[in-house]
């Protein structure tokens, strides 16, 4: 591990860790070093070269030079200033003077650094090439404005993992030869590279086909890459930034809603875009583009409100989803205590039960890891989750650990995922059969568990999978062969050429067949991986020291979910893996910690964001309107075990859940008055909402809300786990998961997220079956049936058909009995 050291920057002593980049160390201590191309959490690009500093008398780039103890750094010398000024002059060469209509509207790093370095005249010139703006779908690229800092492609590769952008040749004239001599060295080298490249699509096609996160446009320092939906809508300086937390999935990303009046005629505020602190948090497409899901209500509907209060009085059950704030969950729990109603939320209930089973062995109420630690680890396993759509940030963590920490990964999931496989060579995908998650967990225990400490029954059981087998291996060995070659040589005495025999030895590869006794692990067979798995894994495991495991919703709804939870706890306890669990919906974790949930629905149901006899809905389709998450103050509990505050970006004129609760006898003027009352016994803290911060420090330290305390729970000495049930789901399989950028009805409601709902089939599946895109099919299982159109999805492969949950009209949950996989018959209608 890295140790604390002291370095000196501009006569200021600062402490940092060994091997930290100088730039990061300086930023953490509020020392300014100009830098354009570097992104925190990504690998240094070395495109801009402006972060030149002098370390111990030698010029280095602060973004990739590592700190050593006692290093003495000067951020500015005469030569460095000359280089920096020349670099900024070069960036301004042929840059169009159209700042007035540029969508960056002043948030421009080119402008900032040009002014910072006082560039007031230009000394260089090169003939410009035709650079036409292109439309890439959700993004618009104007190469004329591009300074090829490669931040977009770096973010895409190192953080997101799509690898959709790369540099392409510009086709410009070479620079004039005299510049090589006359220009500062680094400025020339940087210009020489800049003059040869532009940004293009890796696929070589006209349109972007990626997971559409828009992170590239967010990191763009100039207005070259902009979101098509935002183009020429408004100037950045007119927008008011509302600090908030994204309400779409459990990642709880820091965002700010940028709001302004809708138009000259309409002074109602509207969200124009979503921004993030991209150095410390990366958004997915849903978070970035799915912002207009607010529930606009003209006025308070008193009739509906009276009916709602009446419905609550008569109801014996409140059914709800986890897309609510902690405070609302607390109100529901208080109503339960007051009115004696049942609270039903199947998805949170299964997570709650899973956590409870897990804590019986682990001894803590919550899992131990979070996504930030996953980013920093170098071997990551994902199990039981369609990672890219369940929690995009977990995928970024997996990718980031591989690209920046030279890590490797293991991805256990029945649905083959080209996006995950495309993250790099060091990720191994295991597409096991559904229901075999336990076998995968046993495999992890077998491979990584400390056998001396594990309960003996488990060790014995694991040993029972191993047997020895003799295999014939073909090895290539190099053999020394000596051959005699005739050569012509000049005889030194006579001066004539004559033939001489020379002995030469050389190494020749030779294939040898050998019989070797190897270990045969039947778990690998059960999971359906080939023989090369162990060999590849061993290679990937070299030099790995921090291990993280991400577990997903397939395990919570597994028929043997209790056993899965206990196995996970054993992995946590007896191996180096630290576990993160992905809560299925936005605030599943919060709900499961706050509410006492029941199993069965009673006879009279009030539904909140879900259908009931009386329905409260933030979607605007219920009997009484409720505010959506972007219209509410409150806190959301994220996967990182953090209670994040979110603010109301837009006003809401109707009734809230708190109004109903007050009418039913609770007493609180605002919903956020409950923030300090959240259950301390479950790890919450008694902090008022207004005291919760929501920002990052320059060194990346997160000041957002507070961290839940991971409360210790009682454990029983019983650490027994069930054996594997080798039943597999086989045949025509369906899986419950959303496409990328969709999570629930709220993302479905937004205008920019235009994913088509339907039955998702991979290209392989469409080719091998007689279905075509657009066919109407009937999907039938033991639990129910639905009719929908076939949608071709190139972000999955294999034979498993995917049904989404973001479209409630489809009601795909009705086809499943808890577990996310099922067998179905699919036929054309």
């Amino acid at each position, binding site marked *: 591990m890295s140790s604390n050291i002291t370095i000196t920057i501009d006569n200021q002593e600062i402490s940092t860790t060994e091997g930290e980049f100088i730039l990061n160390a300086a930023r953490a201590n509020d020392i300014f070093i100009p830098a354009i191309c570097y992104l925190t959490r990504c690998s240094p690009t070395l495109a801009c070269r402006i972060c030149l500093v002098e370390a111990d008398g030698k010029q280095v780039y602060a973004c990739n030079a590592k700190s050593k103890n006692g290093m003495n750094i000067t951020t500015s010398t005469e030569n460095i200033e000359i280089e920096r000024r020349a670099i900024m002059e070069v960036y301004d060469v042929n840059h169009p003077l159209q700042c*007035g*209509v540029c969508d960056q*509207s002043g948030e421009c790093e080119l402008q900032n650094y040009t002014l910072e370095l006082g560039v007031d*005249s230009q000394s*260089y*010139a090169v003939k410009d090439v035709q650079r036409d703006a292109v439309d890439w779908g959700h993004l618009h690229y104007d190469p004329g404005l591009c300074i090829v800092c490669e931040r977009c492609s770096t973010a895409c590769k190192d953080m997101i993992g799509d690898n959709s952008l790369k540099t392409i040749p510009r086709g410009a004239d070479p620079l004039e030869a005299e510049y090589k001599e006359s220009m500062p060295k680094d400025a020339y080298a940087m210009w020489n590279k800049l003059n040869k490249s532009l940004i293009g699509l890796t696929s070589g096609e006209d349109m972007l086909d990626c997971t559409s996160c828009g992170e590239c446009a967010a990191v763009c320092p100039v207005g070259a890459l902009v979101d098509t939906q935002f183009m*020429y809508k408004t*100037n950045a300086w*007119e927008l008011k930034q509302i600090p908030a937390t994204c309400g779409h999935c459990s990642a709880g990303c820091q965002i700010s809603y940028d709001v302004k009046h809708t138009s*000259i005629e309409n002074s109602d505020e509207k969200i124009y875009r979503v921004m993030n602190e991209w150095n410390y948090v990366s958004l997915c497409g849903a978070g970035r583009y799915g912002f207009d899901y607010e529930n606009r209500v003209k006025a308070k509907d008193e009739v509906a409100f009276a009916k709602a209060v009446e419905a609550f009085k008569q109801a014996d059950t409140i059914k709800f989803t986890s897309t609510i704030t902690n405070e609302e969950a607390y109100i529901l729990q208080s109503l339960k205590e007051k009115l004696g109603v049942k609270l039903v939320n199947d998805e949170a209930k299964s997570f709650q039960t899973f956590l409870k089973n897990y804590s019986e062995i682990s001894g803590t109420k919550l899992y131990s890891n979070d996504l930030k630690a996953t980013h920093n680890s170098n071997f990551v396993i994902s199990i039981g989750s369609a990672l890219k759509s369940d929690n995009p940030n977990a995928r970024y963590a997996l990718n980031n650990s591989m690209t920046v920490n030279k890590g490797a990964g293991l991805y256990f999931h029945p649905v083959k995922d080209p996006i995950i496989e495309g993250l790099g060579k060091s990720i191994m995908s295991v597409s096991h059969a559904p229901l075999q998650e336990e076998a995968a967990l046993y495999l992890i225990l077998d491979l990584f568990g400390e056998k001396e400490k594990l309960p003996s029954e488990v060790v014995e059981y694991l040993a029972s999978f191993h047997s020895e087998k003799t295999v014939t291996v073909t090895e290539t060995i190099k053999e020394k062969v000596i051959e005699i070659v005739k050569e012509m040589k000049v005889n030194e005495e006579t001066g004539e050429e004559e033939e001489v025999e020379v002995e030469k030895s050389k190494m020749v590869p030779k294939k040898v067949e050998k019989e070797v006794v190897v270990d045969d692990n039947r778990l690998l067979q059960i999971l359906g991986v080939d023989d090369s798995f162990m060999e590849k894994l061993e290679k990937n495991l070299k030099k790995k020291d921090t291990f993280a495991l991400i577990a997903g919703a397939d395990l919570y709804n597994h028929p043997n979910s209790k056993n899965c939870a206990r196995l996970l706890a054993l992995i946590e306890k007896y191996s180096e893996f630290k576990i993160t669990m992905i809560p299925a919906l936005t605030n599943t974790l919060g709900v499961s910690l706050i509410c006492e949930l029941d199993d069965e629905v009673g006879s009279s149901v009030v539904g909140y964001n879900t259908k009931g006899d009386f329905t409260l809905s933030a979607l605007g389709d219920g009997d009484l309107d409720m505010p959506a998450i972007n219209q509410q103050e409150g806190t959301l509990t994220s996967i990182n075990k953090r209670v994040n505050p979110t603010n109301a970006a837009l006003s809401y004129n109707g009734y809230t859940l708190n109004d109903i609760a007050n009418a039913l006898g609770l007493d609180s003027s605002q919903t956020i008055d409950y923030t300090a009352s959240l259950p301390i016994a479950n790890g919450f803290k008694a902090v008022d909402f207004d005291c919760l911060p929501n920002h990052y420090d320059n060194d990346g330290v997160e000041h957002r809300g507070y961290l839940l305390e991971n409360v210790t729970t009682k454990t029983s000495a019983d650490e027994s786990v069930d054996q594997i049930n080798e039943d597999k789901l086989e045949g025509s399989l369906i899986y419950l998961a959303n496409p990328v950028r969709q999570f629930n009805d709220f993302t479905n409601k937004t205008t920019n997220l235009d994913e088509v709902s339907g039955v998702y089939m991979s290209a392989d599946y469409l080719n091998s079956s007689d279905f075509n895109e657009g066919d109407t099919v009937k999907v039938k299982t033991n639990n129910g049936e639905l009719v929908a159109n076939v949608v071709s999805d190139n972000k999955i492969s294999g034979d498993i058909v995917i049904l989404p949950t973001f479209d409630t009209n489809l009601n795909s949950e009705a086809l499943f009995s808890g577990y996310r996989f099922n067998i179905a018959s699919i036929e054309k209608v």
Partner: protein
Amino acid sequence: MKNENFNDRNVSDDYFKVDIADYPTTGWGKFKRVIDRTFKIELLVGLWVVLREMFKFNIHTVKYPEEKMPIGPRYRAVHEMKRLWESDTDRCIGCGLCEKICISNCIRIDTKIDENSRKEVSEYSINLGRCIFCGYCAEVCPELAITHGGEYENASDQREHFTMYQDMLTPLDKMKAGKQLEFEGFGAITPHEDERVKKTPLAY
């Protein structure tokens, strides 16, 4: 410096105090003042001046509204939107700087992307009831598009009085006739601008 220097406010010896009698404080004193003011013929002094000038027939005032004074080219009255001499198209590029700089917050601009992927002003309004005609908008405009004009008659029966983009834009027939006037006030190009600019080198 000592405080006395500041406290001594008798800047010059030329100052003298106006001889004003004390205000009456008693009822009787007040009554006497009313009687004095009413029956002394102070009122007639002013009326006499008017009467005298009336018969001289040498009137110096402008007979507004029949007559109007010529307005200087730098006068700051109701805004105008100028067109480009070359193409007759609008000069405004929709940068929004006028909206930002406006200190009485009376300018609003809506923009959108047009069919040629260019920025287009979809709506523009100035609330003249709030405008203080300070000239900042004309000064900040990078395209010399928004300027002040000479039209000062904008009385209205409401405090809010909006003017829209099309009303301010130079009419096409006036433009075609070459009668668009350039504004010489705030924001206009200063003389000898060319000599003061350092040229950027070009490779072609």
